[in-house]
C-alpha cells in the first residue's frame, strides 16, 4: 500500500498514531478524528433543495413552539469551504413571544470533507459570545452532530451588506484582493480596526466558550498546540511530503514565542470575510468564524497583511495591505485602535506560521478533499491547488527572513 493509500483509506492504527503524536484541543480532536473515520466512506452527495427544505422544517419544528413558514429557500454561491442556503423565516421569534414577522436567515453546512475541517459548535459559541461587542450575525442553532441535517450545520441571521463594492474589478474565486476604492477605503479601514480592537481586547474570562481551550499567558503552550494541530492535518491530508513544509514545522516548534496577551483570533481575518454597508463603508457583519481560536493577535495581523489580500493603490505604486493601507500605516492604525503593541519578532514568527498554514490548506487539505470527491465544489479546490507554488514561495521568503 502506498503512502497515498494510507491517507485515502486510513486504518484505525493510522488514525490512532496521528492522535497520539499530535496533541490538540479536545473539540478539534473530535472533528479531525471524525474526518478520518469517514474518509473511506461516501463522497459528498448533492442534496436536492426539496430534501434540505424537509430537513430544515423538521429541525425548526423540534425547536419552535409557534407556527412558522420557510420562504425563498435557495443555494448561495461564493466561498470554497461550506455550503450555504439562504431563506426567510416567518415566525414569532426564538421564544415565540414576538408578533409574526420575517427574518432573513442562512443555513451553513459542511460538506463530507472540507478545505478546512472545522467545528460548527466552536463557530456557534464564538459568534454568540462576541455578539455584544462586535457586529456579527445572530446565531440561533447548531447541529454539529448532524442529527437532522445530512452534515454538520449552523443557522444564523442573514446580515445586510456586501462583501465588496460594485466598483471592485477583482475577480478571483474566493474574493481575494478586494479593492474598496478611494472613497470607501478610509471608512472600511476604520471599521476594520474597531473590529480588531473588540476581538483582540475581548474579555475572554467573561465569555462562554466551552469548546475552546484558553492558553496560558507567559507560555508558548497555545501556539505549540496550534502547530501540532496543523502538523496533524498535514499528515492526514497531504499527497506527498514537502521538505520545506517539514522544515517550517520544525522551525515553528523550535521558535514558538510565549503569549503576551490573550485575544480572540478570527483565524481568517481579511477583506472578503466581512460585509460592509456600501453607502457608509461601515462593517455590518464579521463572517466566517470557522478558524477562530484564543491566541496571539499577531496571527490575525500577519494574516490580514498577507500579499494575497493586497493590491496597488490608484497611483500604481503604493501597495495597500488588506485593500486598506500601506503596511506601516496599517500597523500604526492598529496600535492606535487597540492600544496593543506590535512585536516585530512575533510578526516574523506568525508570517512563517500563516504561510505554512495557507500552504497546508491549499496543497494538502484541498487536494485530499477533492481526491475523495468530498465537497460540493471539488473543481474549485483543485483550482486553489494551483496557488501552491506562490504560497510555497511566500513560506520560503518568510523563513528566510525569520532564520536570518
Amino acid at each position, binding site marked *: 500500500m502506498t503512502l*497515498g493509500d494510507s491517507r485515502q483509506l486510513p486504518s484505525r492504527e493510522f488514525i490512532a498514531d496521528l492522535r497520539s503524536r499530535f496533541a490538540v484541543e479536545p473539540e478539534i480532536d473530535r472533528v479531525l478524528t471524525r474526518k478520518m473515520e469517514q474518509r473511506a466512506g461516501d463522497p459528498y452527495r448533492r442534496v436536492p433543495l426539496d430534501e434540505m427544505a424537509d430537513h430544515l422544517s423538521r429541525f425548526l419544528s423540534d425547536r419552535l413552539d409557534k407556527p412558522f413558514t420557510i420562504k425563498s429557500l435557495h443555494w448561495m454561491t461564493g466561498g470554497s469551504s461550506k455550503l450555504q442556503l439562504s431563506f426567510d423565516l416567518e415566525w414569532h421569534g426564538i421564544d415565540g413571544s414576538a408578533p409574526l414577522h420575517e427574518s432573513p436567515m442562512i443555513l451553513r453546512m459542511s460538506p463530507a470533507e472540507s478545505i478546512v475541517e472545522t467545528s460548527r459548535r466552536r463557530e456557534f459559541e464564538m459568534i454568540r459570545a462576541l455578539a455584544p461587542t462586535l457586529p456579527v450575525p445572530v446565531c440561533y442553532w447548531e447541529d454539529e452532530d448532524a442529527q437532522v441535517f445530512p452534515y454538520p450545520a449552523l443557522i444564523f441571521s442573514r446580515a445586510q451588506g456586501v462583501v465588496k463594492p460594485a466598483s471592485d474589478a477583482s475577480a478571483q474565486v474566493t474574493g481575494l484582493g478586494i479593492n474598496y476604492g478611494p472613497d470607501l477605503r478610509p471608512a472600511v479601514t476604520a471599521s476594520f480596526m474597531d473590529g480588531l480592537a473588540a476581538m483582540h481586547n475581548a474579555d475572554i474570562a467573561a465569555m462562554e466558550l466551552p469548546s475552546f481551550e484558553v492558553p496560558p499567558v507567559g507560555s508558548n503552550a497555545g501556539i505549540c498546540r496550534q502547530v501540532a494541530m496543523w502538523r496533524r492535518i498535514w499528515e492526514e491530508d497531504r499527497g506527498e*511530503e514537502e*521538505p520545506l513544509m*517539514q*522544515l517550517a514545522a520544525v522551525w515553528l516548534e523550535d521558535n514558538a514565542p510565549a503569549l503576551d496577551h490573550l485575544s480572540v483570533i478570527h483565524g481568517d481575518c481579511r477583506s472578503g470575510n466581512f460585509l460592509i454597508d456600501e453607502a457608509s463603508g461601515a462593517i455590518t457583519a464579521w463572517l466566517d468564524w470557522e478558524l477562530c481560536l484564543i491566541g496571539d493577535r499577531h496571527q490575525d495581523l500577519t494574516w490580514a497583511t498577507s500579499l494575497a489580500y493586497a493590491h496597488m493603490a490608484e497611483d500604481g505604486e503604493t501597495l495597500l495591505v488588506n485593500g486598506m493601507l500601506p503596511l506601516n500605516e496599517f500597523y500604526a492604525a492598529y496600535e492606535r485602535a487597540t492600544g496593543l503593541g506590535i512585536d516585530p519578532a512575533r510578526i516574523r514568527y506568525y508570517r512563517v506560521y500563516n504561510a505554512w498554514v495557507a500552504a497546508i490548506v491549499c496543497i494538502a487539505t484541498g487536494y485530499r478533499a477533492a481526491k475523495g470527491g468530498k465537497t460540493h*465544489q471539488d473543481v474549485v479546490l483543485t483550482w486553489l491547488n494551483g496557488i501552491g507554488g*506562490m504560497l510555497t514561495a511566500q513560506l520560503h521568503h518568510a523563513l528566510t527572513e525569520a532564520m536570518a
Partner: protein
Amino acid sequence: MIPETDVQLGAVGKSLADNVLPVVMASGDAMAIEQLQLCLTTLGIVRQRLPDLHAALRCDLGDTLDLLKSISTGDQADSDLIGASEDMLAASRNSPQDIEQQVRAVKARIAGLLEGARGTPQQAKIASAIMAAQPAMTERQRAWAIPMGFEPDPSQVTDLKQLLNKADNT
C-alpha cells in the same frame, strides 16, 4: 493511430462552451454557471500543460534527487533510493505516475532525514540545503500555474518552456 488527446480535449471544451454553457447560463443557476466556467478553464489549462507533464516531473525528480544526495548520510537505504531515481531518470519509458511516486519517495526520505537530525549539528546543514534547493522547484510550480491567474505580477515568473529547456541543457 490512437486518438489524439489534444484534439479530444479541445473537442470536449468546444462542445461544452458552444452547446452546454449557453443552456446553463440561461438557467440562472449561479453555482452551475460558476462551476462550468471553472471546468472549462481547467480543461483548457490541462490541455495546455499536458505535453509538458513528463518533462516537469523529471525536473522535479532531478532537483529532489540532488537535494537528497547533498544531505544523505550514505546509508544503504539512501544508496538504493538514489540508484533507483537515477535509473528512472536514465530511462525514457517511465510513466508520469511512476516518476511522481519516485519524487514522493525521495521527498519523504529528505523530510525523514530532517526529523531525524533534530537537535544535532546536522539539522542546520539539512535546513540550509532545503532552503537552497527550494527556489528552483517553486519557480517551476509557479510557472506551471501561471494560466490560473493567481500571480499578482506574472511577468516576474519565468516561462515554463524556458525553465524546462534550461533543465534539459544542464
